[in-house]
């Protein structure tokens, strides 16, 4: 099934749900991996909104990326509790060791690095999130190990294997 038909089906599913645009965008992101720019018009039509309104919602929220990410999203918590446990160093280490800035993807297409503000794991900081798995008390060494697992050619499943 192509991307467009898929999105059409999702629009059909969510358009009569009260406040259905947010659940729709989450569903598109879940299925396609991002919110394609060329789906804005399609979504606007389905929800009887202007393209500007749909674009406005997409651009407001950090979660709704409009271009593909790597195979895994690695989020580093930048909030205060993690800072008190050295997350600024983890952040610097991550950027340096992966050779990318926030919002960028490693050359092998495996890892996209993103900032996040609190994962609710603040008693065991610093924390990172790999896809849907959260990791506590992360050090530079454990970060490297997690990245090696993600980036090894054999790894095909979702990240965060403990």
């Amino acid at each position, binding site marked *: 099934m192509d991307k467009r038909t898929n999105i059409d089906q999702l629009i059909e599913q969510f358009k009569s749900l009260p406040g259905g645009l*947010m659940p729709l965008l989450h569903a598109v992101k879940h299925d396609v991996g991002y919110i394609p720019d060329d789906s804005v018009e399609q979504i606007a039509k389905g929800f009887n909104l202007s393209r500007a309104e749909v674009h406005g919602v997409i651009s407001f929220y950090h979660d709704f990326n409009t271009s593909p990410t790597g195979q895994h999203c690695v989020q580093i918590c930048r909030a205060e509790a993690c800072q008190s446990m050295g997350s600024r160093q983890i952040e610097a280490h991550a950027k340096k060791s992966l050779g990318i800035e926030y919002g960028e993807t490693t050359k092998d297409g495996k890892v996209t690095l993103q900032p996040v503000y609190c994962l609710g794991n603040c008693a*065991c900081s610093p924390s990172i999130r790999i896809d849907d798995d959260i990791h506590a008390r992360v050090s530079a060494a454990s970060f490297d190990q997690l990245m090696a697992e993600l980036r090894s050619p054999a790894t095909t499943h979702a990240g965060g294997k*403990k």
Partner: protein
Amino acid sequence: MSMTFFIPQDTTALALGSDSVALTMASELKERGVEGGIIRNGSRGMFWLEPLLEVEIDGSRLGFGPVKSSDMPSILDSLNSRTKNTKSVNHPLFLGEVNEIDYLARQQRLTFNRAGVGDPLCIENYQRLSGFVGLTHAIKLKGQEIVDQIKDSGLRGRGGAAFPAGIKWQTVLDTVGEQKYIVCNADEGDSGTFADRLLMEADPYQLIEGMAIAGLAVGANQGYIYLRSEYPVAHKILNQAIEHATEAGFLGENICSSGSDFFLEVRLGAGAYICGEETSLLESLEGKRGMVRAKPPLPAIEGLFGKPTVVNNVLTLGAVASILEQGSKTYKDFGMGRSRGTLAVQLAGNVKRGGVIELAFGVTLREVVEGFGCGTYSGRPIRAIQMGGPLGAFLPESQWDTPLDYESFAAIKAMIGHGGIVVFDDTVDMAAQARFAMEFCAVESCGKCTPCRIGATRGVEVIDRIVQNEDRDNNLILLTDLCDTMEFGSLCAMGGMTPFPVRSALAYFAEDFGGESPREN
């Protein structure tokens, strides 16, 4: 000898490897032919002990922690060789009877009394521990009588603003409308807070029960839990809990044969901190940009989709269930002054023993941080404590004897907020923290009002100039002026309170801001 093993499945325990502990335990049990099952419980909130393994044996709940997979064989050996009917096990990770661990035993748990006891999704377990008793009571009462109980209890909103819950409910009850809503604010974005998450992951039916009671009280048949997307574990658990509660007749049409309906749905946020502000949250729930609304109209009168809406925090709604179960007087008997009941303190950051600590209002910050936290994780001296999330003030040691009470904190220009305490040791750079407060506001501002949208960006620049000693005196005046503009000119607490951490860092930790000495005049 039959044993039941409890291995938590909340975010923190999972983040520390509890899944692999459970796997190892399962294969060890099989290999040894030991009779015994594994229950994936919620956490007790003693996160410094996670993963905490509990063993139910001879009527006791014995704890071991923090455990690793590789500890399973030796723990099973030690259980085997223990003297029967004693609570003593010879193992380095043995903690004794879990309820007797001082960290837990010294708490006054009303909202979190079930957390970690059993499988969070088991309705029978919830009911065995007095679950849905409050809802059963509520069904026999008129809406006004339920609202009166909440008013009598003195319960104030636990999200941070501390507005009396009963008054909010009264407004919604009194507003005429065919359609009303109950919205749970589960957008727990403050750093250093995780009590909402723990309740949703360890005792989700309590939230569901509180919301159903709120629905009966004000005449609302639809509820939404607005959950932040950073909580994937809570998302999964809540959805399953709603499904089970609906099957069991506690949600949906004609709940508990009361003649009233209550439908409940989880909606995910999308990474915007501002959506924890109630009007921004409502906009987001409506499928829009999370732009803050001007008040009035109050959400209680014109809330979600323009209808009368109760917006309450997870812990507020959780407390509702216990108030209806035990009576408003029991709840009111805890606390001090106008802060009644209990506060779920969340001890976080650079602290040795972090976790959720539920206590009656009135205990001092120092008693929590030193008595429960036992100092920093790094072992270095504590230098600053940030209370109440990213909009809360940084407190120097001279203020640590302030009792945890909304009014006492307001008096020192600080706030309790949602109860998060973040501890920093003496390596912290307070100028960098002040700069971060402004930077965070710049990233997360909804952009509706100028003081917040532009002020935060200018704030970062001014702090940078001060630290670089560039036209220092004038820039300090400018920063104070900017803080005034943000504090008094912003539409909501985001811009209005970002100056709190900035001003307190400057006032109490001026030596970190470069220059020879703080400006004197």
